[in-house]
Each structure stands twice: as C-alpha cells, then as structure tokens.
C-alpha cells in the first residue's frame, strides 16, 4: 500500500507542474464529500447482523406490552404532554377549591365580602388618624371600607349587609356599604367617611349606609334613617348625598345638618351650614343655615323656621333600644355624657373637619349660650314649600361652618 503522504505529495506536485488552477470552493467541497462517503462506505455491518436483529426485534416487540396495555386502555396517556397535563390540571383544581372562598366574586350586597372581623382595625385613639385616611385597596375583589368608627360611646352595633347577627363595633372598625348600624340606649355613634364627612348618631338610632358599590364612593350616597337622630357634616365637592327618612328625604351636597326621626316617623331637619332640601312626595322645602323644617308622615315639609333648639346626638338613657319612644332629643337633656358626668361633648370643629379625632375639648355646653355664627337673616322671607323637585336643583352652600348641638325635637 502506497503511503498517503507519498501519494498526496505526488498528486499535488503533478497538479502544480501542469499549471492546473486551484480547485474552486465547490470543487473542494465535492472532494471532501467524495472522501467522506468513501470512508462511510468502507464500514458496513456484518452480513448476519440484519437477520439477527430481525429475530431479536420481533421477540422484543412481542415481549413489550402494547401502548394500550401500558396505559390501561388510554393510549393518549402515553403522550408526554398528557402525562404532565393531567396531574397539573388536577393540582390546579385542588388549589382552586382551596382558595375559592377568597377568589369568588362578590354576589351579595355591596361591602360584604372580604370584611374584616370586628375589632380588627386599629382601636387606639392615636391611630384613628390613620384609620380614617383611605388606604390603597389590596385587591380589586375586596371592597374598601366606606368609613371608620370613631370611638363609640356606649354600645354601637352593626349588622352586615350579608345579614346575620348584630356585632359590636369599636373605634377604628371599618364600615362598609350596606352595613346597618344601631346605637343602644345611652350610646353615641360616630363614623368618619373616607372623604372626611362626619356622621354622628344619637342613642336608639338605626341607620343603613347605602350606595352603588361599583361607584368607588368615599361616602355613602344615602343613609337610610329608620329611627333616631342623625347629625351629618358633609364635605363639599362630592356627589349628592341624602338622608332618607320615613317622612322625607334630605338632599345635600356639602353642609352640616341633622335629621331626627321621632317615634311617629316625623322627620325634623336642622341646617347648621349651607342649604339642604327637605323633600318628599308631597313637596319640598329649601332650608338655609340656622333654620329647620319638619315633615310629618303623609304631609309636605313645613316651611323653614328658625332653629329654636339645636339638635345634636348624645347618649340617652332608655328603657329599651327598640322602644318607639326612644327619641334621642328628649333623652339628651336628661342624660349626661356617660364618660364625662355632668358635661356634654362639644365637637371641636377643626378636629371634625380634620375627620380624624374625637372631640379634643370637653366643656359644659349650653346650646343657648353659643349663638349661631351665621343665623339666617330675619328679614329674609321664609321659603314656602314647593312642588317636588329633582336632586339636580340642590343649591350650592356657603363656606361658613356653625357649631351645632343636640336637643329633642
């Protein structure tokens, strides 16, 4: 056999001696292809390998369980994707079942699902500032509280929108749309809404916060006052707000006023700041600051007249919480403040406007010793009752704020 070195050297020398041009790239590639194929062709399996393999393969095939046998008659299970997909789907279903109570959409009334347990929120007065500030929502499915309770006096109870038993509320507890709140005898309730509006209610008062849950409200669109007395300071600039009482509705946009419902359902409106329209199916009355109006059941609101005795929620002693005679105003005169005997709480207006703190000053209060800073002009004619008007007619209100106090109707 001629050595490769000698053979190749002779070939190259011969090509150069003849002056042959160098091979092109394709020619070189073809040379390489021929060499490699020759090398490959030089190695062949032995003649008996094929026949041996046929026997061995047929025997192996017979000994190997078929696909359907291996997967219990479900041949598609042999595909790798199903081998992973089936356990993964089963696992996902188990996880979904476990977390379903947290994931399911709310189908009940607004402000029910995701409600924290009573007393979960901050309870210490120092923390109330944080409580009243609207916080970011942690989940789109979890409703935000519409407001927070400010240190109730006595017993303040809540029945969630989803129903169930009455549960006690404490300072800092969140309040949701749809909640019904009730004060017992000798109690005072106070809720600061997310927009800073202040709502205080007297003893033996039952009310319900209502509104459209999807409207991302910072205060309820309306409060259904079933009984008792409500004092409200509504922040300006928000949507229309109304207090719906049995005999009439008070529609406002930003003012300070109180609504009282006595045992017969008669609704008394006192306006401390701005203008409020008291209306029902039989008529309406525009009530300015320093004036009040009364609507009896089945009758139109009376023409406004100067406030004789300012009403402000305060705890009263009552024979029973559900007694129809549980008017807050009458009892207010008889019952001193439960935590400060002999004195009554005067609302610190700055604190109230700050929407955060409980009254920072406590002093003896005489509603007649502190005249209203902006009484209605005496020479201004009273506004007569008018025909029912829609809410769009609600006038704007002045910036003046007036102190208020409570008293029986």
């Amino acid at each position: 056999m001629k050595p490769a070195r000698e053979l190749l050297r002779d070939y190259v020398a011969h090509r150069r001696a003849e002056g042959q041009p160098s091979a092109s790239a394709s020619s070189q590639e073809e040379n390489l292809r021929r060499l490699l194929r020759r090398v490959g062709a030089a190695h062949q399996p032995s003649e008996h390998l094929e026949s041996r393999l046929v026997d061995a393969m047929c025997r192996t095939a017979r000994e190997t369980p078929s696909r359907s046998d291996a997967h219990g008659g479900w041949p598609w299970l042999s595909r790798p994707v199903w081998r992973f997909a089936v356990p993964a789907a089963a696992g996902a279903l188990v996880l979904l079942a476990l977390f379903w109570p947290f994931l399911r959409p709310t189908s009940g009334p607004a402000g029910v699902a995701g409600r924290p347990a009573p007393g979960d929120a901050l309870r210490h007065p120092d923390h109330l500032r944080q409580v009243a500030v609207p916080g970011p929502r942690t989940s789109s499915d979890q409703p935000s509280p519409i407001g927070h309770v400010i240190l109730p006096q006595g017993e303040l109870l809540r029945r969630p929108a989803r129903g169930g038993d009455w549960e006690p509320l404490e300072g800092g507890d969140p309040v949701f749309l749809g909640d019904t709140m009730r004060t017992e005898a000798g109690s005072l309730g106070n809720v600061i809404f997310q927009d800073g509006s202040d709502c205080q209610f007297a003893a033996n008062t039952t009310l319900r916060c209502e509104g459209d849950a999807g409207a991302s409200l910072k205060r309820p669109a309306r409060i259904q006052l079933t009984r008792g007395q409500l004092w409200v300071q509504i922040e300006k600039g928000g949507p229309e707000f109304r207090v719906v009482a049995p005999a009439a509705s008070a529609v406002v946009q930003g003012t300070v006023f109180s609504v009282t419902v006595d045992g017969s359902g008669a609704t008394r409106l006192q306006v401390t700041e701005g203008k409020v329209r008291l209306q029902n199916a039989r008529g309406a009355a525009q009530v300015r600051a320093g004036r009040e109006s009364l609507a009896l059941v089945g009758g139109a609101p009376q023409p406004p007249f100067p406030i004789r005795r300012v009403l402000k929620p305060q705890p009263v002693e009552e024979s029973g919480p559900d007694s129809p005679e549980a008017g807050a105003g009458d009892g207010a005169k008889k019952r001193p403040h439960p935590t400060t005997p002999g004195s009554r709480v005067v609302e610190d207006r700055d604190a109230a406007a700050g929407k955060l703190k409980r009254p920072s000053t406590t002093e003896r209060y005489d509603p007649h010793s502190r005249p209203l800073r902006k009484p209605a002009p005496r020479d201004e004619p009273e506004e007569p009752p008018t025909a029912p008007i829609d809410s769009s007619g609600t006038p704007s209100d002045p910036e003046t704020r007036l102190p208020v106090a409570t008293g029986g109707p």
Partner: protein
Amino acid sequence: MHVGQWHWSTERMETHDSRAERELVARVARGEEAATAELLRRFLDRVFRFVCPRVGYQEQDAEEVVQETFLSAVRLAPTFRGESSLFSWLCGIARKQVFYFHSNQRPERRGSPANTVSLDDEDVQLLQAALGAGPLEQEIVEQLSVRELVEGILTALPEAEREALLLRYVEDLSVREIAGIMRRSEKAVESLLRRARQRAFAVGSEGGR
C-alpha cells in the same frame, strides 16, 4: 393541478412519508417480521455509519451499539409521533446508546482511538493541499491509506463538528434535519460545519491550501 400530498392533522401539517413511517414503526412494534426487515433494510447501514465514527471506527463496537439501538427503538416505538423523520429519531436513540456504551467501557478504553492524528500533522496538510489542488482522482479517494488518514482527522475533530460533517456529506441531510437530530439551531449547525471544513480540511477557506 397537483399541489402535493399534504394531510391535515389537528396539530400540524405532515407529509405522506411521515404517516408511512409512523405506520411502519407501529407495525414493527406489533412484531411484524416484514416491517422489521423493511426498517432494517432502510436504516441499518445509515445508523451503522452514524455510530461508527463515535466508537472510533471499531466495527464490532459499532454493531453492538446498533443492535441496542434497534432493540430500544422497538421498545420506544409508541413514543414515535412522526414529528421528526424516522432516521432522526433513530439517531437520537443511537446517541444515547453510544453514551451508555462508553459509560460501560473500562477506563483504559475510553481514551482517544489509536488512529487519531494531529491536525498539524504533515499528512493532514498534504491532504488539505490535495483537496485544494483540483478534482481528486479516484485512485486517491480509493486509497486505503488516504481513507485511514481521513478517519484519523474525523476522530480528532470535536464530536459535534464530526457529527455535523458526516450527516451533511455522507447522509446528505439538510442543515435543518441536522439541527433536528443534534438538537441545535440551524445557525449553530452551519457554524459547526464551517468550522469543521476550514479547520480540518481547509475547505471553504480562501483558496484552500
């Protein structure tokens, strides 16, 4: 007008050959002797050529690996879905069998084959010069010493470059098919081919040597 024989499946377009190959494998899995013989007739030599350089051109070792490859193919027949060519699928099995073969070898046999040459060797440079001198004469191609020299060069090449080179020029596969067998991108295969040609055989470089 005939537009080709395409069969629609729920997952992809597949060629007529793909279906035929799936049927062939299914018949082999059922133990049909005719199908098994057909499979071996079509692929035994090609798989042997694929395995041979990986075991240092030791034919007995290559036969052992090829035998295990086809027996494994029977056992794995249900996993063949026709998404790649049957030869690619067999090459994948053969690669694993080569790995098992080397794993079971005694350490002293795991070294480089004896016929490995250095790419700086004078003979290698002479071969490169001959490839660039013009069309090789058949006498040189057939020469046993030249063939052994080429085998030595192939053995000296990195495994990936050698595999790409042999699949491209011996099995005449496209770059895409090689990429499927080697589980690499087409660009990676092109890079391997270019490097193997230029470094080992000086083919593709400017003017050759």
